[in-house]
């Protein structure tokens, strides 16, 4: 019960931490995809199958593709390869800030009494989720749909070139 959780947690955190320190963008993107998969494993462990598959489908399947595309489309220049002079200071500051947040969060977790008895896992059947989505959360579902559409259009508009007469290949 606990052991799989610990393994998943340690692996995910380790993979994410390594990803954040690597200089090779592709490697860190791939490792981050691994950590997303680890999070999906956690969902699976917690009994939220649907969320786990959604996580894999969206993150490992779609977001990762967009990230890799962005990496490939943005060629790195020489300036990116050398360590910027302020990188060390910034890194130290980030570590400090991160450590502080970590301390606060850990302190809060430890200080709070959360002695919930680990009861039987709640079930979330696909049917129940579907009924919730179409019933109680129908409005939110619509809003999310609108957000996604707008985001898609916005992304296309932002990323598209605005050259004059750019219709040369549009046949």
């Amino acid at each position, binding site marked *: 019960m606990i052991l799989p959780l610990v393994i998943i947690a340690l692996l995910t955190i380790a993979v994410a931490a390594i990803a954040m320190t690597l200089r090779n963008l592709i*490697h860190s993107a791939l490792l981050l995809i691994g950590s997303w998969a680890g999070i999906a494993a956690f969902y699976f462990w917690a009994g939220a199958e*649907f969320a786990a598959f959604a996580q894999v489908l969206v993150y490992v*399947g779609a977001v990762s*593709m967009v990230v890799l595309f962005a990496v490939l489309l943005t060629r790195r220049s020489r300036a990116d390869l050398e360590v910027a002079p302020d990188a060390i200071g910034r890194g130290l500051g980030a570590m400090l800030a991160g450590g502080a947040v970590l301390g606060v969060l850990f302190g809060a977790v430890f200080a709070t009494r959360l002695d919930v008895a680990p009861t039987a896992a709640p079930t979330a*059947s696909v*049917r129940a989720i579907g009924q919730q989505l179409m019933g109680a959360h129908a409005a939110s579902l619509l809003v999310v749909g609108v957000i996604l559409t707008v985001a898609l259009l916005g992304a296309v508009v932002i990323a598209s070139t605005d050259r004059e007469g750019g219709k040369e290949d549009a046949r």
Partner: protein
Amino acid sequence: MSVVVVATSASEWTALRVVDSLALVATATDRFLECAPVMLRDAVTGLLPDPWRWIANGLFAIVAIFAVFGLLFAFLTLAERKILGRVQNRPGPNRAPTPTFPFAKFLGKIRTYGLAQPFADGVKALTKEDIVPDGADKVLHFLAPVALLAFATLTLVVIPFGRNLVALQLDAAVLYFFAAGAATELAVFMAGWASRNKYSLLAAMRALAQLISYELPLLLSWVPVVMIAGSLSTVAIVEAQAGWKFGFIPHWHVLTPWGFAGFVIFMVAALAESNRSPFDLPEAESELIAGHLTEYSGFKYAFFFMAEYFGMCALSGMAVTLFLGGWRAPLPFLEFIPSYAWFGAKLLALILGFMWIRATFPRLRIDQLTRFSWKFLVPLALINLGNTVVWALMSGGSPALALARWPVCAAIIVVPFVWLGRAQSASYAPRTYRYAA
């Protein structure tokens, strides 16, 4: 006769636990052939004490899948080459001699229509030098084929190969299938990028663009099935296609207007997802010298090949499950044939179709490819979704309404097909060159 064990808790997701005892099998069917696979499994794993049993069952399922599909892969490669040969009016590989080691002196070489070819290929792949380019990303270069094969194999476990023959019964099995399948493009990207070869990288980018484009129609095409069947579980979807109308027309989804359209869209998208021929741009040998496969040799290359066939089998198996009634017999009096034989027959028929298409059509250009998806398949799949809603709403009413839904739903899908198809056909018109005279 149908035993569908409802998932009692979500964490109980491992192993073939559909049928846990011979008694249950006996209720499922009394024919020997039908329950032979499960009986075999129980005979093997029954020796173990109870706590180990589900692990053993799971291992048995894994071994079975690898054995069956590994062998199927071997002979599909041969079948593909044979069929391609026949289509081009030549006999195909027919020379690999069957090893007759102890009796070689008396028998000489025996050529069994090239049936030994897969094994010769396997030996060749195993003994070839494994070349890793000097500038390659060694880890990713190794990881890519392994990951690809792993993901392709993962998709196979939720397909019901026969009555009670599903390795992993999930509540959201169809979602699982496509989640696992979505990861394959990651492996293709890894292969292309790790090779440090411009062609491979181009192939990787093409693969990403293509797979993203075709993921959408693929996902949209099976949503109607889920709507009608009311479940994401593959077993339940097969269950929903049980029975015969008038005693001889099976209730398969492909035999409805929306189901037929969904099936066709699914198969076209599946062709693209498995990088098969009219859409095999990532490995286009004439323009990208085999793309992401360029820098692979030996067994890693064989892994890629194996993953392609596994993916093809998985997608065809999913199409069979979703649209062609799964393991069900087409006619009532044919039910004496075991269910897995029916599944296998349908699967092979679809794969044969894949090969036939490969033998026929030339490769698309990348812009035609993406345009075909975004401007044709996706709108059509969305319309099909609405079509299914109309179908479902009209089925509740009077018999006249139920009869009227056939022409209505057929029209709803055929008219946009013709209309969108006209625009598509225009876009494939002879290319005009801007700079050439």
